[in-house]
């Protein structure tokens, strides 16, 4: 009780000080004038615990970030009932998100023309904590955030991304998980659909005095659209409690297990023409991923102007992927388990070998990041200074084995190697309020990382031998940036420039013999200018023009089917993003919500030199757009129609127009996704019933030609779900 009494005035002062620091010092009388500082009263009940947000929920959050940003809210997630995270991300302008089979547990995300492959160019966070398997040495996203955990998604693309790292060349996507409630809350949710899809989840949260917690367990499984069955189980929990009068700790733990049939070879052109709905060619391939995570976020408020937030996190991702070996042409004397496709047609047949390759890898990450926020005034300027350092170590243990049959999990050891990274980063970011309308935010980030690659065994099937080859490499980067906004929270313009940085992958930086290849990190220069308008409640527009220049962009290539990162040369990306949100029901006083949201993105990403000068970057569609209409009546009924358009794109740097028969190269035609959903929530009982149809058109299309061949999407899936929510009256602060 005494703690709360002490805390309440402190928090009140903090809110007031925050307003003083970031808002104008006086409130002009004009209608679009800056918001006056909130009155110094008792702060509203705090729902969120200590957490890292890249945008936040404040009314003026967007004005405070130095660049373009979008937020997907809890309400939008509830209404959309997404199948996976990619479905929501593709609604964000400038973002290309490729859904993959396997229950949505793997996806590709690209921003502003960057190659979306395994989201390597995008920094993906969950509650501010990176989730890629090794953020420095191998920033691939084999664990995709479980959308059922989330209550929001934030995307920052401008210079604000230098607060987070190491990747700053694309943008930051931060998934925000469920918060521990202040009173009893529980939910049971079951969903079933065709293709054998079943999903069940249960969560429970409560508060006992100063301790709040939430826990959720989810399981989903299905046959997959292409015969790639999957089973995912995810469990996570969060506990938040006070550590002192002015300190709070949030602990998050999670376990994720994902088993799926997952082939790396898609259809050839001939197979696609004969049956675009053909199931996977590699039913024996299986990917098993297991992830354990723990994260601690401690927040200590020293006074109304100063707080220290410290993140400590660790996670392990173990991935075993067995893949049947194959060839696209018969070799003398070779025996095959199956031959799919037409052997008489050029490049159509795929010769499946009896053997398989087992890629057994374990990745560990440990990070510590204290971040201090301090507000102060100098020379009449209001500063909000963020400074922080991050120490991170990561390791990877690779084993590659060859099995004698397509379903072998054992096999003979061909390759063993370990990677280790030690990295340290420091950053400072000062949001300076100049006068009533101008915020200028200069920032600087410094990255330094050392890499070690130790190869312990290598060779072919009969001559693999133990070796001891060790190589070291290091990479550093200085990442300056500046952004500014001018105007009020209802109408402002913003502009920014920053340097993008991405460390080299350790397998590219150090060759198998342990020699440092002296690969440079990727760098680009990014510029953007835009405006946001929110003239009325429920109405919002945002447009951003941007340009990004790479001196050498690394792109995904292929080596006999294995994905390799290769030099792509200089590239230039420019484009325009536009987003709008119209609360038609609010503006027209219809008595129910009728929201229309839309986004459009134009991206022109091309090679600037070399053999491919002028060609578009692979997997960078020129046009993408989204339109979502949602109606929600107070009686509890709701309807949503969402459509996404993805323009044509190429699969290779040469911009090959026509397929060569293998399905690996060629133009990818535009495609449209149309999802509809109806829902009814009976408020008195807490029961919600939903009917969702994803890809209503059932128009199967070529989504990707990667890793090897044509992968299709667009399968209609009808799902019926029932949810029960229980929410007790929230408990008052003691």
């Amino acid at each position, binding site marked *: 009780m005494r703690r709360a009494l002490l805390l309440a005035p402190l928090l009140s002062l903090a809110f007031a000080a925050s307003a003083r620091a970031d808002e104008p010092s006086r409130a002009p009388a004009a209608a679009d004038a800056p918001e006056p500082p909130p009155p110094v009263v008792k702060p509203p009940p705090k729902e969120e615990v200590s957490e890292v947000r890249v945008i936040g929920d404040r009314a003026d959050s967007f004005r405070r970030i130095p660049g373009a940003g979008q937020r997907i809210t809890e309400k939008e997630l509830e209404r959309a009932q997404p199948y996976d995270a990619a479905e929501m991300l593709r609604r964000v302008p400038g973002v290309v998100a490729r859904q993959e089979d396997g229950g949505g547990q793997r996806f590709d995300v690209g921003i502003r023309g960057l190659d979306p492959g395994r989201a390597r160019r995008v920094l993906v966070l969950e509650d501010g904590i990176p989730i890629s398997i090794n953020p420095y040495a191998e920033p691939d996203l084999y664990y995709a955030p479980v959308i059922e955990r989330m209550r929001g998604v934030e995307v920052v693309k401008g210079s604000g991304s230098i607060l987070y790292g190491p990747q700053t060349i694309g943008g930051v996507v931060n998934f925000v998980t469920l918060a521990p409630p202040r009173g009893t809350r529980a939910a049971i949710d*079951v969903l*079933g659909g065709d293709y054998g899809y079943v999903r069940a989840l249960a969560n429970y949260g409560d508060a006992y005095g100063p301790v709040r917690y939430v826990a959720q367990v989810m399981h989903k499984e299905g046959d997959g659209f292409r015969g790639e069955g999957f089973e995912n189980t995810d469990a996570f929990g969060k506990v938040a409690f006070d550590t002192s009068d002015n300190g709070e700790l949030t602990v998050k733990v999670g376990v994720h297990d994902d088993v799926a049939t997952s082939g790396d070879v898609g259809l050839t052109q001939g197979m696609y023409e004969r049956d675009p709905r053909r199931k996977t060619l590699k039913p024996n391939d299986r990917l098993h991923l297991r992830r354990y995570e723990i994260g601690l976020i401690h927040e200590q408020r020293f006074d109304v102007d100063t707080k220290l937030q410290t993140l400590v996190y660790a996670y392990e991702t173990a991935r075993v992927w067995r893949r049947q070996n194959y060839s696209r042409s018969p070799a003398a004397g070779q025996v095959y388990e199956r031959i799919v496709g037409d052997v008489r047609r050029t490049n159509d047949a795929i010769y499946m070998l009896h053997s398989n390759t087992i890629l057994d890898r374990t990745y560990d990450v440990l990070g510590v990041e204290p971040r201090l926020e301090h507000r102060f005034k100098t020379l009449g300027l209001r500063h909000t200074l963020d400074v922080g350092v991050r120490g991170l170590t990561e390791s990877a243990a690779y084993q590659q084995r060859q099995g004698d049959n397509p379903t072998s999990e054992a096999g003979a050891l061909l390759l063993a190697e370990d990677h280790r990274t030690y990295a340290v980063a420091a950053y400072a970011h000062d949001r300076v309020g100049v006068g009533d309308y101008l915020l200028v935010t200069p920032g600087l980030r410094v990255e330094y990382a050392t890499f070690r690659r130790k190869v312990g065994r290598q060779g072919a099937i*009969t001559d693999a031998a133990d070796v001891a080859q060790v190589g070291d490499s290091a990479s550093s980067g200085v990442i300056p940036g500046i952004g500014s906004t001018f105007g009020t929270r209802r109408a402002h313009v913003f502009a920014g420039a920053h340097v993008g940085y991405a460390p080299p992958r350790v397998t590219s930086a150090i060759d198998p013999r342990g020699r440092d290849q002296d690969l440079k990190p990727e760098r680009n220069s990014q510029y953007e200018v835009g405006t946001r308008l929110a003239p009325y409640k429920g109405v919002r527009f945002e447009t951003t023009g941007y340009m990004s220049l790479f001196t050498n962009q690394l792109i995904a290539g292929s080596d006999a089917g294995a994905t390799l990162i290769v030099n792509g040369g200089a590239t230039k990306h420019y484009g325009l993003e536009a987003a709008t949100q119209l609360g038609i029901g609010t503006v027209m006083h219809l008595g129910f919500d009728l929201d229309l949201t839309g986004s459009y993105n134009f991206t022109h990403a091309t090679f600037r030199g070399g053999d491919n000068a002028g060609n578009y970057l692979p997997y960078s569609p020129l046009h993408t757009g989204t339109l979502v209409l949602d109606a929600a009546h107070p009686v509890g009924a709701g309807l949503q129609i969402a459509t996404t358009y993805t323009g044509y794109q190429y699969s290779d740097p040469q911009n090959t127009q026509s397929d060569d028969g293998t399905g690996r190269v060629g133009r990818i035609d535009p495609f449209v996704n149309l999802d509809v959903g109806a829902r009814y929530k009976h408020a008195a009982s807490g029961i919600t019933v939903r009917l969702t149809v994803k890809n209503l058109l059932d128009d199967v299309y070529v989504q990707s030609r990667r890793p090897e061949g044509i992968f299709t999407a667009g399968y209609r899936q009808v799902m019926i779900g029932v949810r*029960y929510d229980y929410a007790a009256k929230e408990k008052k602060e003691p």
Partner: protein
Amino acid sequence: MRWWKLTLGAVTLAGALAPTLGATTACRSTGPRCYDGELVACDCDGGPQGYATCAAEQYGACDCSGKIPGTDAAAGDGSSGKPPATCDAKCPFGAACTKNEDCATNLCNQYDKLGGRCTVACKVPGDCPPESNKCGGKGVCQIPQ
């Protein structure tokens, strides 16, 4: 009180879900068992491995002619799942191999998808034979597929 409500909710939900799940799991997807002209390995009595050809969505009799049906390629001896080297002398670039000595290039590399193939160590694409012309990340030439 809240536990009563929770229990009641769970029971209601279970009741509502039984028909839902029953209906959805019944909608499992199916497809053809095989596609016309495609081949699957089969055993031949005492001879090399043969192949059965798919017709009308099912595989026919085992073809033990010693060739891959529809091609002139030899079917292999089928004695094991491993690729035997059957080159007359040393195997050329790109041929299947099991050890370095099988190859004219004296390098048998294990590729992820292809298995053992004769190749050449390289640093730049120019080190590779014309049919490859690509130096892969492991310091060996890529094999054209």
